[in-house]
């Protein structure tokens, strides 16, 4: 039990608690804001695990872009301000059972395989910008290019979806 264990444990507690609030809160906008807390705590976990570059990418892309897009989506669909009572399904007990079962299976499998393992964090950091950039542009160039194509096509697809429905409304 080292100091790093305590730090990542606390960050994990924050992340799990915020994720629970995302899943159960009755206010739509609060769910998006709790998601910010959760994603930032996961970025902190990345920092503890010496993946500095990924931590900042997480902050930039997730907290900066995705949550803002989600907030835009909430506002464009006229999300009500204030508590909403029927935000979850009536059959949420079943959903909770399934979720607990999934989590139990995953955590049991992982702990049975890697329960006593320890991470050696000494030595050079594993994920600073130099390391990640070198690896991405040496070993992972082809996937990188394919991902960029996918991002471009998703962008074009989102624009096409929005435009097509806009034309329908016009005519």
């Amino acid at each position, binding site marked *: 039990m080292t100091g790093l*264990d305590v730090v*990542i444990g606390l960050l*994990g507690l924050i*992340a*799990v608690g915020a*994720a629970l609030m*995302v*899943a159960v809160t009755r206010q*739509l906008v609060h*769910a998006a804001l709790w998601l910010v807390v*959760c*994603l930032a705590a*996961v970025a902190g*976990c990345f920092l*503890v*695990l010496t993946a500095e*570059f*990924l931590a900042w*990418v997480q902050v930039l892309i*997730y907290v900066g*872009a*995705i949550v803002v*897009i*989600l907030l835009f*989506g909430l506002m464009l*669909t006229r999300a009500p301000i204030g508590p909403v009572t029927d*935000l*979850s*399904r009536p059959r*949420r007990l079943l959903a909770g059972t*399934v*979720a607990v079962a*999934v*989590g*139990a299976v*995953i*955590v049991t499998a*992982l*702990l049975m395989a*890697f*329960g*006593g*393992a320890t*991470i050696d*964090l000494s030595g050079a950091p*594993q*994920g600073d910008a130099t390391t*990640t950039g070198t*690896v991405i542009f040496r070993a*992972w160039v082809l996937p*990188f290019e394919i991902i960029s194509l*996918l*991002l471009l096509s*998703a*962008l074009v*697809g*989102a624009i096409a979806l*929005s435009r*097509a*429905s806009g034309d329908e409304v016009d005519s």
Partner: protein
Amino acid sequence: MHLAVPLVIASALFAIGVYAVLARRNAVLVLMGVELMLNAVNLLLVAFDVYLRDTLHTGQALTLFVITIAAAEIGLGLAIVLAVFRGSATIDLDLLRTLADHDDGPDHDGPDHDAADADEDHDTTIGRQAQRSGSPP
């Protein structure tokens, strides 16, 4: 540092994401649940990358790709959600039953009525198309 700590955190995040996807009725909240699950996978990938000291850094490269795919997914997902909202004025997933099998639905009116309904829809669609192509611009 124990590997078990990030593993437990990731499992809990994934389970909560599953719950959010299954239990929420608002489509945007379901997308948030998907984001939680993707984050759990990211945490797992980073933890194992550091644990295995992979020289190719497979875990971190895949995490970057997952983040990119999450961004693409959320953009497309929200475009679809907005299109649905424009079409039916709601994003409550329990009310969007256009594609549902009506056998066990709450508004069960019998197969004959459904067939007649479908026919009627078909006719009106054709009529609308004919009207549109026939009418002057």
